[in-house]
């Protein structure tokens, strides 16, 4: 059984929620105010009979009062609170942070997974588990979900936004989202759960992770200096992915708040400025319990929901392990349209001809692809190092699993890179590559500048470069000959190709570990980590000049990164390319001109066109003869060269024995005359059949290979 919170604080909150004073409760129970006060301060607890009376007074059952795992339903019910319009008449037509992102589940995957990784509980050494669930609701399931989120209260707001939709982007997106739900009768929920993470801890309003995610914009309260995120932008992708601008949250806390940890629930809606029933609204709205302490008891705060409520909201968490579940209501994936051609293979043949941004199978494929691409390193362990992250993706339709849960396996998604990193952890790297499948390691220096614009070098951090052979076609990402760079959070930041490789270089994949990715104890690992984090733009996709770098170090600090890149490319070239020979006689140009290589063939001259053999069926007949049926394709031309079909037996070396024809018959488009095919002018295809003369066979037919050729002229 769950352990409820202390009776005193619990009762105090119930009174506050119900809008009752201690005196009023004392009156109802016909007790003194001092007795109630003593319960609340924890000096005493009520007798069991009084418990029943308290339950009655609070409008709940005795069980709730005893266990105290949820709030009573007394007082103000869970509702939507819409932030009123600004008194100065200002209007925000959408959230700028969400504007920065397109609806793209791959960006969502990157940002949310990075957040989970940053919030991992590190003490127990276990990985953070992240699970993406796509859930398509239709019919009854959709109706009851809409009821659960009080859709009827929201609808006027959506209508108001739709009416003004012509004017701005967010409105149009929302309008399209609502229309899709009604026209197609469906709604896609995308849930992002993490387990073994800190959860949304802290007060509803004061500084803390809860407020940072739910109440504030552009605030990042990351747990450590090595964190991946640093701008507080990532959370905006949650709302950007929702066509309805609606995200519901259920968090299990790692540090109790108000004496509780489980089922802290709140919803947040991002809409542009709107006017409903003559009242202006600023934009955001929150789904929660009205806070009696707020002015007019209007502001919605998170509440401790019961299991039934979270189930109705599709927010049930599978265990009491700390972490957060985000439910994106009306998820769509506009970016999938661009990459439609490569996503087609994964959609399992579901091709309805409609460019659908809400296809859960397609989204499933794109999530797996993005997670494998960006987080393969965090998912890789080896030696004494455990993986930091485990991710899985699944898809449901009205509670029925349609794509089974699939744990993203880095050695499937990124076999070569995963092998490289694993070899590094296990200490099985080599100095030079002598066998396919080996991993070569090299140290590459990163000279860290002194901060504050001072000249000179703080110290040299030795980054580790790993190079291994690329794994054929299974490495679907961005081609071969790439360097992926990682720092402490083990998320791929930078991918870049290596230029100026000689022709015929064996395809490879390289991984560069910098900062704490090398190991926390590596010299200057922390400094390198800090430096590179400052050099990351909000997209976390490269290292280069940023404002922060300029301010904290110097305007030329980014050159240290360029120098690192140059060193890396040299080291890669040294490992994978042959050294250039120095004294080649006669110079490179002559040698190149004297290499026999395939070139585009010369154009056929004008004049009679030459038919070619296009299709051939052959069987061995009852008497041991070869029976053939052949199709010929004829290029467009006025005059067609007569051709002679020649049957030969294939040999390994020397001349091929020729077979005589016993019979040669034209089927269509040609006629046979003296074992020569003459084609009807104007036809593009012709067909003939024939059988060989067994007496001309030098060996048993079943032990031969037949070669059929068409020859111009006499055919000898």
């Amino acid at each position, binding site marked *: 059984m769950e352990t409820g919170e202390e009776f005193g604080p619990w009762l105090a909150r119930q009174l506050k929620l119900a809008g009752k004073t201690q005196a009023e409760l004392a009156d109802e129970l016909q007790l003194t105010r001092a007795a109630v006060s003593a319960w609340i301060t924890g000096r005493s607890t009520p007798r069991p009979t009084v418990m029943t009376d308290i339950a009655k007074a609070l409008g709940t059952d005795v069980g709730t009062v005893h266990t105290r795992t949820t709030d009573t339903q007394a007082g103000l019910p869970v509702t939507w609170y819409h932030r009123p319009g600004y008194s100065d008449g200002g209007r925000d037509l959408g959230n700028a942070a969400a504007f920065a992102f397109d609806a793209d589940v791959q960006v969502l995957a990157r940002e949310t997974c990075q957040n989970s990784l940053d919030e991992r509980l590190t003490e127990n050494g276990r990985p953070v588990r992240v699970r993406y669930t796509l859930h398509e609701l239709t019919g009854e399931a959709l109706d009851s979900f809409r009821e659960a989120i009080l859709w009827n209260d929201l609808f006027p707001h959506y209508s108001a936004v739709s009416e003004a939709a012509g004017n701005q982007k967010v409105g149009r997106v929302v309008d399209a989202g609502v229309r899709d739900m009604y026209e197609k009768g469906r709604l896609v929920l995308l849930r992002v759960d993490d387990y073994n993470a800190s959860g949304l801890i802290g007060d509803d309003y004061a500084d803390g992770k809860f407020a940072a995610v739910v109440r504030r914009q552009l605030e990042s309260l990351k747990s450590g200096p090595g964190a991946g995120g640093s701008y507080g932008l990532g959370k905006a992708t949650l709302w950007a992915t929702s066509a309805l601008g609606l995200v519901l949250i259920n968090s299990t806390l790692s540090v109790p708040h108000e004496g509780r940890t489980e089922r802290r629930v709140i919803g947040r809606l991002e809409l542009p400025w709107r006017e409903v029933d003559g009242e202006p609204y600023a934009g955001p709205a929150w789904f929660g319990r009205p806070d009696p302490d707020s002015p007019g008891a209007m502001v919605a705060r998170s509440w401790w929901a019961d299991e039934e409520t979270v189930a109705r909201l599709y927010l049930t968490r599978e265990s009491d392990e700390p972490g957060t579940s985000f439910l994106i209501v009306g998820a769509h994936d506009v970016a999938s349209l661009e990459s439609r051609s490569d996503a087609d293979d994964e959609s399992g043949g579901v091709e309805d001809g409609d460019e659908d941004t809400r296809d859960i199978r397609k989204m499933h494929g794109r999530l797996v692809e993005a997670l494998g691409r960006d987080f393969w390193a965090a998912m890789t362990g080896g030696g004494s190092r455990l993986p930091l992250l485990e991710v899985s993706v699944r898809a449901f339709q009205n509670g029925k699993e349609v794509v089974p849960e699939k744990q993203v396996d880095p050695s499937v998604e990124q076999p070569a890179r995963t092998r490289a990193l694993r070899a590094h952890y296990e200490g099985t790297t080599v100095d030079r590559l002598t066998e396919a499948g080996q991993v070569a390691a090299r140290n590459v220096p990163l000279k860290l500048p002194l901060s504050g614009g001072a000249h000179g070098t703080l110290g040299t951090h030795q980054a580790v470069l790993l190079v291994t052979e690329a794994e054929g076609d299974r490495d679907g990402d961005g081609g071969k000959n790439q360097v992926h760079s990682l720092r402490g959070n083990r998320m791929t930041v930078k991918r870049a190709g290596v230029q100026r490789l000689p022709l015929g270089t064996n395809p490879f994949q390289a991984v560069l570990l910098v900062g704490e990715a090398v190991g926390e104890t590596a010299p200057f690992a922390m400094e390198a980590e800090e430096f590179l984090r400052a050099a990351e733009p909000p997209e976390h996709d490269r290292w280069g000049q940023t404002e922060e770098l300029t301010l904290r170090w110097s305007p030329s600090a980014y050159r240290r990164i360029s120098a690192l890149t140059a060193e890396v490319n040299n080291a890669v070239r040294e490992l994978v390319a042959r050294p250039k020979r120095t004294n080649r006689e006669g110079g490179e140009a002559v040698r190149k001109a*004297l290499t026999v290589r395939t070139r585009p063939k010369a154009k056929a001259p004008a004049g009679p066109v030459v038919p070619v053999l296009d299709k051939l069926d052959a069987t061995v007949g009852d008497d041991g003869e070869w029976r053939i049926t052949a199709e010929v394709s004829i290029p467009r031309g006025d005059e067609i060269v007569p051709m002679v079909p020649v049957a030969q037996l294939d040999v390994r070396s020397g001349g091929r024995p020729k077979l005589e024809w016993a019979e040669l018959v034209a089927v269509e488009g040609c006629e046979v005359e003296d074992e020569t095919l003459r084609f009807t002018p104007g036809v593009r295809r012709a067909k003939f059949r024939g059988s060989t003369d067994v007496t001309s066979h030098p060996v048993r037919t079943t032990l031969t290979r037949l070669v059929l050729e068409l020859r111009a002229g006499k055919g000898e």
Partner: protein
Amino acid sequence: MKIYPYKRLNRPVALRVTSVSLKLSDGTRDQLETTAYSTQQQSVALGIAGHIDWVSATIGLSATLPPGANAPDAAWSDLSVLAVLTDGETNVRTSADLTLDAEGGRDWSGSLEVLRDDHLGRASLAVYAVGTVDGVRGRSIAETDRSWIVDTVSDEPVRGLQLDVQTASFKRSSREWLQAYADAPWIVDASARVPTVFVNTDVEGVIGLLDSNGSGVDSKVRDLLVAQMATDVWTAVFHGAIGDLEVEPGGAPVFPTDWQGEVLREMLPDVFPGVHVEEALRQVHRRRTGESGWVELQTRIHYAAVRRADAAKALAYVIRSLEQMNRESET
């Protein structure tokens, strides 16, 4: 088109080289770096490490059979996979059995021993999946569609045959026959193992010009010179190849399997466009040995050589940079 009288697999076997090591004459082994082979060019260069005294090479191989090779209802049994190294010059064939990596899988691996004395230069490496079909043993069910090239001499794993270029002072060379050509800037020897171009260092500055790698007019002139040389070389090589054909009993020529074959395969489509190379070879042979048509063919041969030498491009560049130079000197 080829037809087999039994059931086979349509798709080819994929072959990869995974390691190369040399056994030296003193009994030691040198494990070569993976740069000794190129998976893109599908070639192995055993000369890369600069050893002159190696005795044999061990090439590690991995082959993947096409889907269906191990299907339970397949028409074949006793499946085995062989790597076969064929040298068209020395007519040596070496084969090695590969072993199945994992039961039920389609990956086979093993290694092939290449004895240096068996080969002159380039040999081709293919993999065959063979089995018993219709009661006949050793039938090929699938093979690689493109062979790897194992070059025992080359120091660069490139697929294309590279003709040899040598520099020598024709007057003072130990190759006495060169002295007869002392006034020629270069000469082609098509009778060597691979056709070789000798550049005469007695012509002052020719080496410097060929080695130059600037971007000015020099390099354009160099390209023109190279194009001129290449035209000569390709013409000579073509004649060398065509003059030396083996002839079948019926009088038809056999396609050569050594460098001559490679040269002919590349050049014949330009000499006789629009027909199969084997047909083209027959026509060339007929004209050379027959009554007429050989003289007319010279234009086509010349054209094929010019195309290979990229003469048109080189000439255009020279003209353009000359024009530019003239304009600059006028202003």
